């Protein structure tokens, strides 16, 4: 393969990587910058205006550090908007405020708070996150603050980190408060029968409650009976209406959605789809954790009677929702090792199935839509889940090679992150290479006249400019563009250097999928090191 062929193939690879398509649009809708009916390709002008408004608000958002803004300007304009849209809608590592918005304030801050309330089912007017911050916002925040026993500001900030939020709740309430009951009338007999194993549920409960507590005895007497006729449905009904427990069910739904197990609406409804997602996540961890303790679904979720289920959310939230494994490293670095050590046929299967996944992602209709007055959406900020998957890289590799469809949604979420980094990584790499090969030319043209300015940068630093216009505005535009280009060049050349080094270290094993993983791995590590460099305290 000649160098030009290699670069051409990479360019194609970058072009065919699933574009982020509707991620930005969804976030703009979630934050109220774009009405839902404008969230289609026919309204590209409105989308551009909404982005512009978001960028203007971002400039005055003093809770975003200036160095972080500067860093993402270096990576490129598209990446800049996408990164900050994702950051402000993130509930893993979201933004934290020093104060709440002033009454009647409409700002990015007020939008973020309404968005968070909306996600957690506390915003009474879905899809109106652009509303001003009013006493209604405060009332809803106070309900949540009451659950977490914190101030409204602390509560709004805690919503930026769902794991910390969950951890806080787990430390605040007695264990028995996490044993939930709910009615799910639409579940079929098959699921009910599968989960009707109260003995196993009871044993797990004793373990999690650390003994046969009074609460356990109460449940045993009223609910966990072998004779259905002796079950107290009144107890179940009243337990199901407890506001804290209702909120916990919503929290579980958000966790499931965030981790890619649940793709339905965030609607508080523990219907068959939400229940199935819970079973899927149990199967996922059973299958993915080597040597870990496996659990049967009916040990934590059991069908009782009359459409009522009992759910041991204590076990569920501790085990599956909280991500604390920082030692597992990075998923794509671990995957790199898996691909490197795999035999040729497995590498080929991996590459083919990766291609299949890419096509699926590209063909997905992910336009934000309204269903029953709620927004159907995807969670894109998957940082902590990717961290958790890092320890499961061996299994993830196997699942891709064997094309396991059971966990397809979860894998799609992970590989959405892969392709996003691949696309931007390839762009930075090719930008750097083009500069090295002396191809970096920038042209600024005046739309109204035939005036233009052209500058060519050579690798040795020489610069030649030719101008057929002395127009001040055009010159300023050209200067600005070149300054931006040169500032992104440093990043692009760092990407080139790291990728070339990584590739040469593994030259004897080098294959196309390994190269792609190298690019993602290099791009992510450089972003992280730039972040450390730029964001370290002075």
């Amino acid at each position, binding site marked *: 393969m000649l*160098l030009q062929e290699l670069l051409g193939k990479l360019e194609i690879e970058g072009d065919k990587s699933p574009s982020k398509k509707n991620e930005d649009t969804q976030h703009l809708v979630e934050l109220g910058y774009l009405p839902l009916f404008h969230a289609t390709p026919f309204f590209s002008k409105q989308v551009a205006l909404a982005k512009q408004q978001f960028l203007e608000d971002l400039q005055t958002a003093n809770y975003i550090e200036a160095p972080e803004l500067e860093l993402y300007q270096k990576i490129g304009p598209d990446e800049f908007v996408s990164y900050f849209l994702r950051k402000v809608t993130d509930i893993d590592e979201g933004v934290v405020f020093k104060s709440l918005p002033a009454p009647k304030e409409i700002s990015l801050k007020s939008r973020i708070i309404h968005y968070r309330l909306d996600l957690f089912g506390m915003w009474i007017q879905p899809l109106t996150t652009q509303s001003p911050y009013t006493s209604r916002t405060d009332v809803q925040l106070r309900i949540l603050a009451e659950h977490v026993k914190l101030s409204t500001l602390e509560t709004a900030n805690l919503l930026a980190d769902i794991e910390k939020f969950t951890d806080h709740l787990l430390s605040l309430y007695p264990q028995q408060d996490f044993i939930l009951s709910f009615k799910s009338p639409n579940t079929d007999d098959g699921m009910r029968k599968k989960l009707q194993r109260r003995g196993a549920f009871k044993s797990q409960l004793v373990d999690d409650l650390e003994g046969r507590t009074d609460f356990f005895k109460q449940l045993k007497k009223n609910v966990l009976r072998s004779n259905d006729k002796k079950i107290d449905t009144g107890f179940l009904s009243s337990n199901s209406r407890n506001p804290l427990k209702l909120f916990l069910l919503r929290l579980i739904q958000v966790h499931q959605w965030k981790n890619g197990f649940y793709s339905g609406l965030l609607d508080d409804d523990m219907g068959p789809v939400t229940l199935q997602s819970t079973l899927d996540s149990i199967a996922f961890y059973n299958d993915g954790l080597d040597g870990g303790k496996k659990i049967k679904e009916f040990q934590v979720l059991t069908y009782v009677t009359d459409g009522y289920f009992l759910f041991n959310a204590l076990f569920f939230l501790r085990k599956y929702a909280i991500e604390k494994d920082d030692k597992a490293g990075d998923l794509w670095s671990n995957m790199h090792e898996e691909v490197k050590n795999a035999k040729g046929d497995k590498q080929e299967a991996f590459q083919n199935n990766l291609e299949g996944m890419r096509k699926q992602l590209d063909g997905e209709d992910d336009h934000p839509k309204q269903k029953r007055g709620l927004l159907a959406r995807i969670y894109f900020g998957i940082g902590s889940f990717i961290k958790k998957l890092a320890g499961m890289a061996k299994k993830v590799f196997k699942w891709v090679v064997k094309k396991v469809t059971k966990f397809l949604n979860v894998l799609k979420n992970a590989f959405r992150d892969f392709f996003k980094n691949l696309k931007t990584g390839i762009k930075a790499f090719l930008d750097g290479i083009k500069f090295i090969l002396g191809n970096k030319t*920038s042209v600024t043209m005046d739309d109204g006249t035939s005036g233009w300015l052209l500058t060519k940068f050579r690798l040795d630093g*020489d*610069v*030649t400019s030719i*101008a057929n216009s*002395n127009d001040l505005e055009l010159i300023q535009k050209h200067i600005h563009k070149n300054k931006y280009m040169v500032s992104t060049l440093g990043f692009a*050349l760092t990407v080139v250097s790291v990728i*070339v080094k990584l590739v040469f270290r593994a030259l004897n094993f*080098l294959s196309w999928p390994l190269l792609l993983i190298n690019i993602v791995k290099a791009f992510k590590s450089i972003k992280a090191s730039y972040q450390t460099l730029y964001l370290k305290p002075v």
Partner: protein
Amino acid sequence: MPEQVDQGKDQLKKGFKGLLSKIGSAIEDAATLEVTTFSGNFEYKASDVIKNNVNKVQIENVLKTMATQSDVNLTLVAYTNVKIDSDVTTFVKGNLTSEQNELLALHKDMLESSKEARQSVINLVKGLIKA
């Protein structure tokens, strides 16, 4: 099938070795910086630029087009040479019109950009050498 995979691996290796040799040969002339700014009354129509796919337009193509136009009047506005020992030589066209003066701002700015670009290249080389 594995044979095909091996063949692909060999080709990739060749491609990357080619890339490394290009980087090696391209960075030999970084001892001096030359920044040159021209102005002219030549025309290079927007359609020509678009035809050349804007970002991929080559300066050589522009020069070629200019060479075929008999009425082209190319003027050197400024030239700066910076040696690695920091010796700087600058020529600026005399009698600049007030309009051409604006191009001096472009020249000065390109000088700063060229220094920054060269520093990025030096960092690239450092990065490649560092274990």
